[in-house]
């Protein structure tokens, strides 16, 4: 039997796996699975060394909950902008795609601004990568998360430029969907970080 004739058509030009699911999407979920293990190891390291610092500054002295609550809200809202961008590209709404993609990138940049402010404040308060175990594990974990957000913002701006040039149409919705999966992943990682590091001190 002709396999190609049986399996339903997938998104755009991307081929399907033997499961009938899109190759790119399935592959990206596998990547997100490996990223989960990566962040899991960083969180495990933080939790293992929690409360083991012998010199300050300690978490309760330095973490700014009101500020981080605002940045958490900003990242959550960026996730909303991202799904609205996906919904816009899926219905062929070019203007909506441009607006929501840019809104997501701007909120992501705002989150990075909050993080830069926080890191600078911690540095001036005497907390660096080398100060104590809290500093080492905190900066590595949140730094890697910030790097992921930065990659996401660049990715979104590339998609926005493609949409501006008319190269991101309804047929390319999968490109936005995969970028969205990445963006929501950095959001859920932050949900865990906000609870385990900032709120459970």
């Amino acid at each position, binding site marked *: *039997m002709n*396999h190609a004739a*049986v*399996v*339903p058509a997938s998104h755009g030009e991307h081929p*399907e*796996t*033997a*499961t*009938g*699911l899109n190759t790119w*999407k*399935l592959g990206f*979920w*596998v990547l*997100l*699975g*490996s990223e*989960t*293990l990566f*962040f*899991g*190891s960083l*969180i*495990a390291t933080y*939790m*293992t060394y*929690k409360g083991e610092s012998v010199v300050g500054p300690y978490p309760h002295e330095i973490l700014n*909950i009101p500020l981080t*609550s605002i940045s*958490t*809200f900003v990242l*959550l*809202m960026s*996730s*909303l902008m*991202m*799904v*609205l961008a*996906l*919904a816009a590209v*899926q219905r062929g709404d070019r203007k909506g795609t441009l607006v929501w993609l840019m809104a997501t990138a701007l909120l992501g940049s705002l989150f990075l601004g909050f993080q830069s402010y926080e890191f600078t404040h911690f540095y001036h308060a005497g907390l660096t990568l080398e100060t104590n175990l809290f500093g080492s594990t905190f900066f590595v974990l949140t730094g890697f998360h910030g790097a992921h957000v930065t990659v996401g913002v660049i990715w979104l701006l590339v998609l926005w430029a493609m949409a501006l040039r008319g190269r991101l149409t309804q047929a390319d919705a999968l490109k936005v969907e995969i970028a*969205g*999966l990445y963006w*929501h*992943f950095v*959001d*859920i990682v932050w*949900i*865990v970080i*906000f*609870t385990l590091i900032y*709120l*459970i001190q």
Partner: protein
Amino acid sequence: MDSHVRASAGHELQHEAHAHPGPKTYVMVALVLSIITALEVAVFYIPALSPVLVPILLILSAGKFILVVAFYMHLKFDSRLFSGVFVAPLVLAMLVVISLIILFKVLPLYRNV
């Protein structure tokens, strides 16, 4: 024959998938996420809740996590294979974290008694 079986499996996985929700659902989810975040911060500042702070925060955080994954990442609507590919390493990562907490934080308490 083999290709026929694989194609049938493909059909089944495809048919499990449902249409993604619309903007109205996305906004509703964002509203719930905002309320849960506000609750998390409020709970943090209520001294009377400090004995049960950790379980409350873990439950609220898990709720936010599930909402984003189910609705924004569409795992509630997409093929179960995507869920399996993501949830399996997630469970493994959680086991690593829990094991290390038991090894380095819980067991030493019993050794010192």
